């Protein structure tokens, strides 16, 4: 770590063991990565992390020692990201109506049955993947491969935990459209994970 970094970090008085500059630097790095994965915009991600850290420092008193520092700071960051996404969606909700249904055509026969080679296969004890860092890399990649609006709606619902109605309101879309977008996101993710992880190489490397 450079001396300049140290200067920025050391004046901050954090309860131990968080006073280790290394720990804060490493948390900051993870925060940035997380914010980037959610916002996909370097400036906004940087701002979110700065604001979250500032809020954390300002409210150091409310930090309970029994909760992990990282967990606490991340919950603040999650809220910042939620705010940014909400603000952003208000600005450009007009774009969300573009609907691509190719995926559903690929997955289902005209009769409405799943195609023979569909992704609706059995994933054997998928939770085992949670401990594998590679799984998360693939998960994020799959999320990023969805059309931008589709992944945004999915993240608002599943990662940030907003209710469907809140999302419809925020984005100015109908409930029906919202359901369709979430459906598409889930189909897309299941196809991607099935192909790239559960059927693919990833599974072989799993410990």
């Amino acid at each position, binding site marked *: 770590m450079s001396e300049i970094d140290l200067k920025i970090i050391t004046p901050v008085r954090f309860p131990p063991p968080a006073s280790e500059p290394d720990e804060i630097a490493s948390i900051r790095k993870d925060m940035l990565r997380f914010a980037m994965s959610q916002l996909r915009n370097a400036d906004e991600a940087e701002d979110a992390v700065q604001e979250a850290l500032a809020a954390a420092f300002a409210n150091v008193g409310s930090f309970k020692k029994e909760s992990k520092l990282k967990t606490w700071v991340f919950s603040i960051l999650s809220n910042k990201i939620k705010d940014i996404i909400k603000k952003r969606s208000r600005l450009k909700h007009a774009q969300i109506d573009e609907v691509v249904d190719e995926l559903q055509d690929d997955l289902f026969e005209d009769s409405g049955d799943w195609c023979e080679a569909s992704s*609706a296969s059995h994933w054997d004890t998928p939770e085992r993947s*949670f401990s594998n860092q590679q799984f998360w890399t693939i998960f994020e990649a799959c999320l990023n491969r969805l059309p931008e609006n589709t992944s945004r709606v999915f993240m608002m619902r599943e990662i940030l935990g907003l209710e469907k109605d809140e999302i419809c309101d925020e984005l100015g879309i109908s409930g029906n459209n919202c*359901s369709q977008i979430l459906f598409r996101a889930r189909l897309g993710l299941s196809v991607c994970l099935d192909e790239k992880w559960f059927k693919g190489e990833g599974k072989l490397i799993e410990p």
Partner: protein
Amino acid sequence: MSLDCKDAALLISMRMDQKISMLQQISLRWHLMRCEKCRNFDKQVMFLRRSSQRLTKPDVLGDDR
């Protein structure tokens, strides 16, 4: 009301976000009893939720020493 897999899959997704009608619930349950692929998709959708929720947990975001 008889569902094809495409309808059933949409309901499987929808019930993650809202209450579906009694008729839809019954039709879906009936369909799931007979359709393995839709049962798989149902499990996948729930797994996606569990995964997404873990995505914000710090231990996923990097080495948590």
